[in-house]
């Protein structure tokens, strides 16, 4: 379910996307840039183990402390952004594209194709997303690719419903009929005259779904079914630190702050986009 859908769309102020969109986008861009320059920024090597420097608490030298192998947690959190952010973006974009195409098909073609697509959507939407994800990853084997397939299978439904609704409404309107009567092909009518009306809302959904995709990826990796070492991922870091929770809480807790930061940034972007597109 898209976040925007869940929390409703209230109190939309008219006006520009405003500072929210810019602040959110800058936050994400900064985080992504920092992931490429992590070593230079913090002065530590993300993979260098130093057993004399194990479990240092957060200090000026190690802002997020060090882990069980003496690695700098902040550097690893930043490097992990290079894994998490692209996968989360893809995990939101891939289902959006699939859902838009299937929804347009279901709305435009109607008949048995439309019915089949929407029944499938009902079935998938009724199923708990983490269970669907875990079962798919089991069938495909752990890793980023399986995560993307799982996200695509689970999350296209929202977009398909949205686009199908718009297409059903528009296909009977005069200008679409006129375009058809003028002899334009189905593809052209769909792409040029129908889809542009459904896209703004789909884009807002997709933006807010980045948070969901990230939490799926982090949860999978946390459960040992997503990104595997030596890859670095936030959920995986949280799992690695959990055995040391009693005295070295920072190893597990700090990576979660990055997930929350992304959540705030994405919320700002989605809110800003919505205001801009609804003008």
């Amino acid at each position: 379910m898209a976040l925007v859908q869940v929390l409703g769309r209230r109190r939309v102020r008219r006006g520009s996307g405003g500072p929210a969109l810019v602040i959110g986008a800058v936050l994400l861009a900064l985080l992504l840039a920092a992931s490429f320059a992590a070593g230079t920024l913090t002065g530590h090597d993300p993979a260098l183990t130093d057993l004399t420097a194990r479990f240092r608490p957060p200090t000026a030298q190690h802002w997020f402390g060090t882990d069980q192998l003496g690695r700098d947690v902040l550097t690893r959190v930043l490097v992990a952004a290079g894994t998490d952010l692209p996968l989360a973006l893809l995990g939101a974009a891939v289902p959006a594209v699939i859902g838009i195409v299937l929804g347009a098909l279901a709305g435009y073609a109607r008949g048995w194709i439309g019915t089949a697509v929407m029944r499938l959507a009902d079935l998938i939407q009724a199923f708990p997303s983490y269970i669907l994800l875990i079962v798919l990853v089991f069938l495909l084997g752990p890793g980023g690719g399986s995560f993307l397939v799982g996200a695509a299978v689970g999350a296209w439904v929202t977009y398909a419903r949205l686009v199908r609704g718009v297409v059903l409404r528009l296909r009977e309107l005069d200008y679409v009929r006129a375009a058809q009567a003028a002899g334009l092909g189905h593809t052209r009518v769909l792409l040029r005259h129908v889809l542009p009306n459904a896209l703004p809302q789909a884009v807002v959904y997709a933006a807010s779904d980045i948070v969901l995709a990230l939490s799926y990826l982090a949860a999978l990796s946390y459960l040992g079914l997503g990104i595997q070492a030596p890859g670095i991922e936030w959920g995986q870091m949280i799992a690695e630190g959990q055995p040391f929770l009693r005295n070295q809480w920072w190893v597990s807790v700090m990576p979660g702050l990055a997930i929350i930061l992304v959540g705030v940034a994405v919320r700002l972007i989605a809110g800003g986009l919505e205001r801009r597109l609804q003008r």
Partner: protein
Amino acid sequence: MTGRGRFRFVGRRLLQAIPLTLVLLLLVFAMLKVVPGDPALQVAGPRASAATLEAIRIHLGLDQPVWLQFVHYLGRVATGDLGTTATGSTKVSTLIAAGTPVTLVLLAVSTVFTVVIAGATALLAARRPDGLADRLINVVAAFGVGVPTFWLGIVLLAGVALPTGAFPIGGWGDTPATVLRAAVLPALALSVSVAPVLMASLRSGIVEARRSEYHAAAQAAGVRGWTLTRRFVLRNAAVPPVSLLAALTTLLLSGAVVVESTFGLPGLGLSLTQAAQNRDFNVIQGLTLVFSLAVVAVNLVGDVLVALLDPRVEV
């Protein structure tokens, strides 16, 4: 709706669940055909001869047509035979029977927390729509959905369980008191991500009920305070969330799978994760079946409840 009408509606809804259940059974059965690797080879080991493999195929019924295999699968499911775990030591049905009460208790406690958190915040937010409290709660709610449940669980372990010693660091209890104590923190972690959904629905319901004519009439008749809230606001605001019930339970179940791992609760979710890690096919297949049937049942109950509560649902 008349009594007979209701009865007919429930009956028809039950009948509708049958083809859906069959489709789900077919999908769960089909998992075996999708999973990489030859099942006979897995049973026999890599050095088995072609003749042994053939014998095992016949023994497992893999030489029969797929539809007949499906019929046999249905027969086994009907008798509760879901096979054994990969080590062969435990029956999958035993595993499921042991995990179900754990997951059910976790879901029940989470539901209580979710309703209390959502109800309290919705009442607070709806007091002055667009006021300071409303805006603040909306921001916190948006934030709550984005916080990973397993991470919140870890923060609760590090910040509450370890310093206070009032809750176990993980695992389950064996008396009602220890069970409840073991369920509190995971249920709390779970509720934080689900409560915002219910809160948003309740809040708009309350705001709408306050603007209604019957509310104004009750007020004019001198109904005040908690009685007004309870009888004229909450009762009407609760109808839309009831239709959310199935979706919310599914969300909780989904989250429970992850949070059970964080707290080491021996429920169905932990079994699922461990089976995925160990590539234990029978356990995954059995659990997928149980979860599917649970979802069908939850949606069935949800639809029936809505029909019973809301006179507008036509039968």
